[in-house]
């Protein structure tokens, strides 16, 4: 049984324009790929031109987007990695999540250690963190 995912966004003309620019495509280039007139694409980006499913799916295919890109999450590679880590964390059992929190606390303490000469806190071995 699937859980309900709330809808995130409507595809609108302004988003199509952003995506096109993100792909460094001119209106002429994109309209050629989709198979509509450039003037119609221009109207589409302004929200005046509505099209059938066949054309809409061509638009989405041309952009060949990752879902995050579509939603305008112009995230850096670091941000994407962070999102992935959070997602992985949420999939862990509560025990495993606690261990990860402990490890994060430990790493923060390690970072705050003012004098390396005084010795680093012991790094937990792999067994303890897994």
């Amino acid at each position, binding site marked *: 049984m*699937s859980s309900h*995912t709330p809808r995130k966004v*409507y595809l609108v003309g302004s988003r199509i324009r952003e995506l096109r620019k993100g792909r460094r495509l001119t209106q002429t280039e994109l309209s050629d790929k989709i198979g509509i007139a450039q003037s*119609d694409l221009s109207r*589409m980006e302004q*929200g005046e031109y509505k099209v*059938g499913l066949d054309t809409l799916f061509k638009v989405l295919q041309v952009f060949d987007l990752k879902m995050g890109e579509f939603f305008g999450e112009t995230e850096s590679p670091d941000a994407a990695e962070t999102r992935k880590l959070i997602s992985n964390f949420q999939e862990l059992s509560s025990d495993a999540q606690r261990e990860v929190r402990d490890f994060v606390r430990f790493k923060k303490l390690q970072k705050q250690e003012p004098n390396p000469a005084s010795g680093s806190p012991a790094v937990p071995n792999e067994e303890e963190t897994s």
Partner: protein
Amino acid sequence: MNERRKHLEFLRKTAREAIWAGDYERALTLYDDGLSLARSWKDRDLEDLFTCNRATTLIELDRQDFDLSRLKEILLHSPSSYTGALASYVAANAHEARGEYGRARFYAQTALSKSRELGHEELTGTSLNLLANLELHESRFEAARDLFQEAVERLESEGESLSRHAAVATDNLGYCHIALDRMELGLPLVHRSLSVLDSLGARQAMDYPMLDLCFASVKMSLLDEAESWGIRALGLGKEFGREDVVKNAHYLLAEAYSEMGRDSKADEQYEALAVYYPDFPALKHYLRQISLMEVINLRA
């Protein structure tokens, strides 16, 4: 009217009723019979008329195995007659079916001006309806609305016998209003159209009104209604082999189910839709999270 003409007129009338009932194969057989008879009797006018009617039926069947240039010959050798105007109208439909919208517009305009000259209200109305559909294709909803409005007025002025054409134009007008978010204007028109078509047994023409009601219901978040209309539209689309209706119905049903939170039902519709787009395997995953309702045109 002589007996031969009466017989052929009867064939035309019966074929037309078969078309409205969705029995295109029967209509085609009747038109083929009429065409053979007209040829054997060397009645050029009726041969031309049956050629036009037969081509119309083939277009309805999504078939292009007829001679388009023959229609243009009819227009050229009978430019001032009803048959010439009809040939132009059918040629416009043929070009529209081929996606040649510029040519379709030219022949539709020709049919309109000739039918106006002849004072033929039905052909004037159907030509206006076709021109309006061409406007809709290009997403010019206001222009289409005005043409549909005039088409409805022309067709309704012709009285009861032509109310099927009027009902189709009325539904189209209703769709324009719905697309322009004027539900209070659009919904009564679509319901009226559906009621007329139902009373006339024109089931084949009821798919788009149902689709339009599904579309409006999704827009207004009346999701149970959307489901009901969508299922009925889908059934008719499958029954009469209307791929455009089937695809739009799958999409709108998926939208409705998704908004209801019935994700597994929505997935069924997405999967059914994805069958038509084998080159786009990610379709379902996109549509689970992206709504196309703001950019979709059911008549494009």
